[in-house]
Structure formats: C-alpha cells, structure tokens
C-alpha cells in the first residue's frame, strides 16, 4: 500500500502526539526514580533530577529480597504462559472448529466465568486451595493456567473462526485425525495469535499482585509485584523504591515484546497454503 508523502506526515504527527501522551507519565516516573525523596515530593514538581542518584536503585533492590522475588515471578510467568498457550489453543479449537451438542451453552458458561468479580470468589477459592494444601505455594498461581482461562480461550476462538473450513476438509481427505489437524495445520497458522496470547499473559501475570497477595504468606515465595506493593504501608508510601522497582520491572516484558513483535506480524505475506 503506497502512502503519499502528505499522508506520511500526518501519520507521523499522529504517532508522535499519541506517543507523547503514552510516554510522558513513564518518563516522569523514570526521572523521579533518580531523585532524592525530598525532591520527588517537592512543589512545584521538577522534571529532571538535580543529581542522578543511581544509589536509589541499589537501595530499592536491597530493601527486600528481590532476587528471590524475581525468580518466583519468572517461574509463575513462564509456567502460566506455557500452560495458557497450550490449553487455551486446545480448548478454543474445540469450540471453534466443531459442531457438538451443548456447544453454545458451554461457551456461554465459559464467558460467564469472566463476569464474576474476583474479590467475591476469592475467599471460597482460598478455601478450595487450602483443602489441596496449596496455600503458601506458587501452585494456585500456576496450575489453574494449565486448564485454560476464559479470556484467552474466547480470543483464540475468535481468531480460529476466521479460518476457512477448507483446511480441515483437505486434511481429512488425507486421513488425518482431529488432533493431527489441530497440531500440524492450525497451530502453525495461529502462531502469531499464540504469541499474542503469550505476550498478553506475560503482562497480566507479571504485574498481578492480588493472586500472590491472597495465596502466599512467606516472603520467600513473593513475586515482584507483591514485593512492589509492600512499599505501600498503612502509614506511608516509600515512593522512590517503589518507582525504582517499577522501572526495573518494566524491562523484561518490554524485551519480550520487542522480540515477539517480529512473530506477531509473520502472517502478512498471505495465508499459508
């Protein structure tokens, strides 16, 4: 699609305006992380720090056992992402490419599970996990992801329904069974979407602190997000360490995104035969 020079200019202007809106708060946060606390809360607020206090980051990292938290966060993120990608694609395929009795009702139930706010099912869930003896382990955070989450199943199902029926028909003529069709034909086609789900899951899980808050007790099991939240106490908030850790926490998901970007757009050259 050729774009004229004029359109290009307009596009750049739009891109830049939006980028400023999105980036500004983060830039502000980033600079403030380097300030001393007194400067951070000063009125009127300054943009650049007077002195670049790199020590802030070291202090923040040492304020809590963040290395341990990091390990836990990675475990949970990798564990859930793998689980979601595998299970959601499987389930979505079932909903998208077959006709079967009870499909619509089951799908509505699936959607319905997204509609109950969590703070109300939190306590009953706690009791269920307690009966499994999973409280204070990472299991409640990881294992359910291997059984699919309504959100991603729904998304995958939408994507999968966008593929013409011919693919199954051709494969079935060749004698393939349903699972082979799923694994050998559809999964490769859906690779961009699978990567998308992986990226979305990483964002959600990496920053999730409600789950860890409720199900974990020992600080040795904490995730980064929960450690971050600990900087907010009942009486005061430690702004600087909070911002430092926030900045650090953004790095892994952004790296993952930059790498994943390439794969999300893979399909542009046209549908695979």
């Amino acid at each position, binding site marked *: 699609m050729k774009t004229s020079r004029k359109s290009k200019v307009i596009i750049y202007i739009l891109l830049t305006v939006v980028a400023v809106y999105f980036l500004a708060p983060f830039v502000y946060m980033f600079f403030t992380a380097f300030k001393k606390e007194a400067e951070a809360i000063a009125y009127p607020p300054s943009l650049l720090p007077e002195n670049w206090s790199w020590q802030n980051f070291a202090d923040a990292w040492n304020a809590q056992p963040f290395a341990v938290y990091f390990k836990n966060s990675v475990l949970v993120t990798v564990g859930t992402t793998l689980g979601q990608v595998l299970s959601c694609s499987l389930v979505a395929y079932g909903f998208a490419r077959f006709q079967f009795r009870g499909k619509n009702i089951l799908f509505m139930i699936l959607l319905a599970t997204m509609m109950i706010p969590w703070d109300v099912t939190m*306590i009953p869930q706690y009791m269920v996990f307690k009966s499994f003896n999973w409280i204070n*382990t990472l299991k409640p955070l990881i294992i359910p992801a291997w059984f699919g989450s309504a959100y991603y199943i729904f998304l995958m199902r939408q994507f999968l329904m966008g593929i013409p029926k011919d693919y199954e028909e051709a494969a079935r003529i060749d004698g393939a069974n349903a699972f082979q069709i799923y694994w050998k034909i559809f999964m490769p086609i859906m690779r961009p979407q699978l990567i998308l789900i992986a990226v979305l899951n990483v964002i959600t899980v990496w920053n999730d602190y409600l789950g860890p808050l409720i199900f974990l007790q*020992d*600080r040795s099991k904490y995730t980064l997000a929960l450690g971050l*939240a600990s900087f907010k*106490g*009942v009486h005061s*908030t*430690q702004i600087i*360490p909070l911002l430092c850790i926030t900045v650090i926490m953004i790095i892994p998901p952004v790296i993952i995104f930059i790498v994943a970007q390439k794969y999300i757009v893979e399909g542009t050259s046209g549908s695979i035969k």
Partner: protein
Amino acid sequence: MKRKIGLLLVLTLTMVTVLSACGGSGGNSDSGGKTKVRFASWDNAEDLDSQQELVDKFNVSQDEIEVTLEAYGDDYDTKISAGMGSGDAPDVMYMWNYPSYYEALEPLDSYIENEGAEYKDNFYEALWAYNQIDEDIYGIPVGFTTHALFYNKDIFAEAGVTEPTDDWTWDDLQAAAKTISEKIEGVTGFSYQLQADPYDFEMYLWSNNTAYVDEAGNVADNLNSAESVEAFSVFQNIQKEGAAITTEGGGTDEFRSGKTAMYIYGAWSVSTLDGDGVNYGIVDIPAFADSGREAVSILSSSGLAMSKDSKNKEAAWEFIKYWTGEEMNKERIGYELSALKSVVESEGVMEDEKSAPFYSMLEQSTGYTPASFLVDDWGSLADDLELALERINNPTTLEDPQTVLDEVAGAH
C-alpha cells in the same frame, strides 16, 4: 454420550485426587518439631527489615517456637479478612479496628492475669480501653500515639509570627495561619486532611465537650449539637480565609516540603521529619476558646491480637509478650510512643522535647471512649461521617456544617 461423560468424570476425579496428593506438605506443616506461629504486620518494606531482625532474634533465643513474619502492607485488611473468612488467619496480628474484627479474636484476659498484676499495670491505663470490647481485652498494646500540633519554626520566624504554645486556641491558630499565608508566597499556614478518618476526628468534638453519640449510642443532639457544629466549622472557616489547604494524606509530605506551616498529626512522622532536617516544634492541639478545657486527642493505639482459630495459642502468647515487652518498646522509640511506663521512665522519654507533647496530650485524653465502641452500626455511621466531612471540607463544595450534620443525625 454416556461413555464420554463417564470418561470425563473419571478424568476429573483422577485429577482432583492427584492434585490433592501433590499438594503434600504445602507451606505450613511443622518442621522439626518447632511450633509455628504466623505473625502479620502492616508496615511497609522500610520497617519490615528491622522487624524481621527482631523476629529472628526471638527465633534464635529459644528452641520451641518459630515465628514467620508476613508482610501485608497496605492491603492488610483485605488479607486479614480473607484469612478470617476462610478460617486461616495468622496466629498473631497487628490490630486496631477491634469493633470490626473482635469476633475472630481470642480474648486475652486470662493470659494477662496469669502474668500477674505488675504486667498489666506497666501499661498506660488509657490504652486498655482502646484494645478491648465491653469487658474483654483483645489486644496487648504495642505502641500508641496521640496527636499534636506540628509547626515549622523557620517559616514562623520568616513571617515574624510568634510560635504556638500549649495555651493556644483555635482563634490564635487561625490568625497565625492567615498571617503566614498572606506574608509568604507559596506557603499556607495550616493543612488538614480532606478525607479525614471520622474515628480520629471525634477528638475535636471531645475537645469541645461533646461527642458523636452519648453513652447510650444516640446520635441526635450530639452529632449535630452546637458544639459539634463548631468543631466541624473551625476547619472550614480557616480554609475559607485562605489560610488552610486540605491534603489527601495526613499532611506530612506538604509539611516536609515547606508548603505548609502547621498541621496536626501523630508521632509517626517524627523520624521522617528529623531525617529531613526540618526545623520544627510540637505543642498541644489548640483548645476551643469557649470550651473551658484543654484539647483532647484520640489515641491511635495499635495492639497485638491473637486469632481465635489459632492452633498454637500458648506459643502465640509467648511471642506477643516478647513483641510488646520492654526490649521491643525500646527499639521502637522514635517511631511510636512506648506503651510501657517502665520504658518511658528508663529511657527518659518524657524529657525528650519531641515526645513530651504527646504524653502531655495523653494525660489530657484519658476517659474518652470512641463512638466506634459504643455504636452497633459504626460502619454505616462512619461512612456517613466520612462523606459529611468531605462535603464540608471539599474546596469545591464547602457545605454548611449544620445542614450536613442534621442530615446525618436524622439518618441515624
């Protein structure tokens, strides 16, 4: 179809069994025979380190009990409620909202009695009222603070205004605040919290010889009495004069950065302000000119409570004793005021000019019971009071206190 359902059922049953089995020891079984006690704290990361050290010290000092420190930070209430709701609350917890939680707590009277009379007497009497419901004590006081007036000496000097004294009235404060606000660019004389906690705010009513409710718990004619209205109005009036701003938090940040010259707060900010090097002083809260009495302060006392469902109550009690004992009190000086008379004496706390005002406020404040302990439905009253305070103090609304309070009194 039946076969498929059957298959599914078998699969599910298998999964559930496997999952329960691989739950195994979970996170909390006894290891090596030591009794485990879970201790929940609401402090932020900064204080957690020192708390962890103190917990470690306890663990090392004896062989039978192992205490784990759990940090919940700002979401403390959520976590505790969830724990209580599922019967899995920590053994030992920080507590201050007894009316809401006491039903899940273990009464401690028998434990206290076992320690002998000296044990109980060493605590300041006024604190027990804040840690008990009816006749049962549910928490051992850990520390407390009263509230006092902080003022910035440098700003007062710059504006040429005489510093506050313990004899000040609200009129004095208003005049000083106004002068400062007018004389110095970018500085406001006084600040107070916009979304004030109704629980704390009641102290101003006490200072003016009234309260939210009477002993029977009646709201009418108490909350909306003339004295009460005066208490609510005094803040609004200062704001209307342009001499006060409302703050989102307690006001410490604004005070630290030199944006305000005075604010009322507890002892929590003392070490922060010292760390910043602010040149400040502390005096009693101003009195109401017509009240004929000194100001009264609320006691913000936190205590250590025990869960009713705890499986290790004896061990929990040992730890509670330790955490509220003399050694711990000494460690916490500079952050909270000591609840133990013996420590106050031995450490000469009264002589310290930063602590003395709080103890003097303590003396003026014995014998008052917060409405939360007197009213059955404090939750709903507190909600309405919170909203009322907002309506009165929000700079964009500034509603008439009498009208607002009449409304609230009418609804209760």
